[in-house]
């Protein structure tokens, strides 16, 4: 599989960078972040609030298969159409704390575009905790990988 999404997380730093190139014109990529109905579709979340402006707030809510609800919210600091979104992100009722996100949108060709997402955490430990959570969610995959490593040793 093609590795379209890249994660750059230097050891011991409190930040990470996620980059991704899309087979979409810049305007469509940005729209996916700006229109609540579209955000709901690809994020698999309910958009309770999305105020796309400086000092605006946003609030999402996801429901897992067991019916548990998880809230996410933040404040929008900058909203420049087709260019940039600066916002905070926080998972409600978790010890993870708030993170600062710089989203930069860039057109590459007429039909392709790029997203650069720079995320800053309170500490390097907080960042690693988030990465570890990704591991929990991708737990089956981690399991498969472990299994493959073991198989390879046989």
């Amino acid at each position, binding site marked *: 599989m093609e590795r379209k999404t890249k*994660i750059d997380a230097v050891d011991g730093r409190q930040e990470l960078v996620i980059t991704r190139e899309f087979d979409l014109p810049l305007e469509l990529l940005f729209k996916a972040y700006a229109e609540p109905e579209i955000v709901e579709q690809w994020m698999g979340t309910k958009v309770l609030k999305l105020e796309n402006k400086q000092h605006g707030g946003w609030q999402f809510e996801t429901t897992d298969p067991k019916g548990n609800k998880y809230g996410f919210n933040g404040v929008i600091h900058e909203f420049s159409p087709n260019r940039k979104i600066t916002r905070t992100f926080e998972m409600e009722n978790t010890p993870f704390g708030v993170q600062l996100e710089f989203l930069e949108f860039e057109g590459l060709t007429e039909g392709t575009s790029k997203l650069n997402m720079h995320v800053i955490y309170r500490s390097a430990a907080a960042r690693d905790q988030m990465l570890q959570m990704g591991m929990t969610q991708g737990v089956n995959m981690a399991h498969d990988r472990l299994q493959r490593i073991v198989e390879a040793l046989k």
Partner: protein
Amino acid sequence: MNLRRDIFQAIADPTRRAILLLVASQSMTAGAIAANFDTARPTVSKHLQILIECDLLEQEQNGREIYYHLNPEKIKELVDFIEPFRKLWDDRFNKLEEVMKKYQTKD
């Protein structure tokens, strides 16, 4: 070198792999871990001991209880630590692309 081989031996056992996956999400006591298995409690304890010995698990005293959690540094040696996180975002962005392609043709 020897230690490294030990890690791989440690995860060669399915119960021990299951234990690692269990404590990946949260620290747990030996009792809570054992409750997830049909195997006898002493067997689970033995597995925990092996995981501790090769540094895959760490112990933490909290009041009267001992909690077990993953040692991320060691896990990094086993699997690419970031890969599941990357996969999560990759899936999410694939979905975005798919949704927007449909949106595009609808227009």
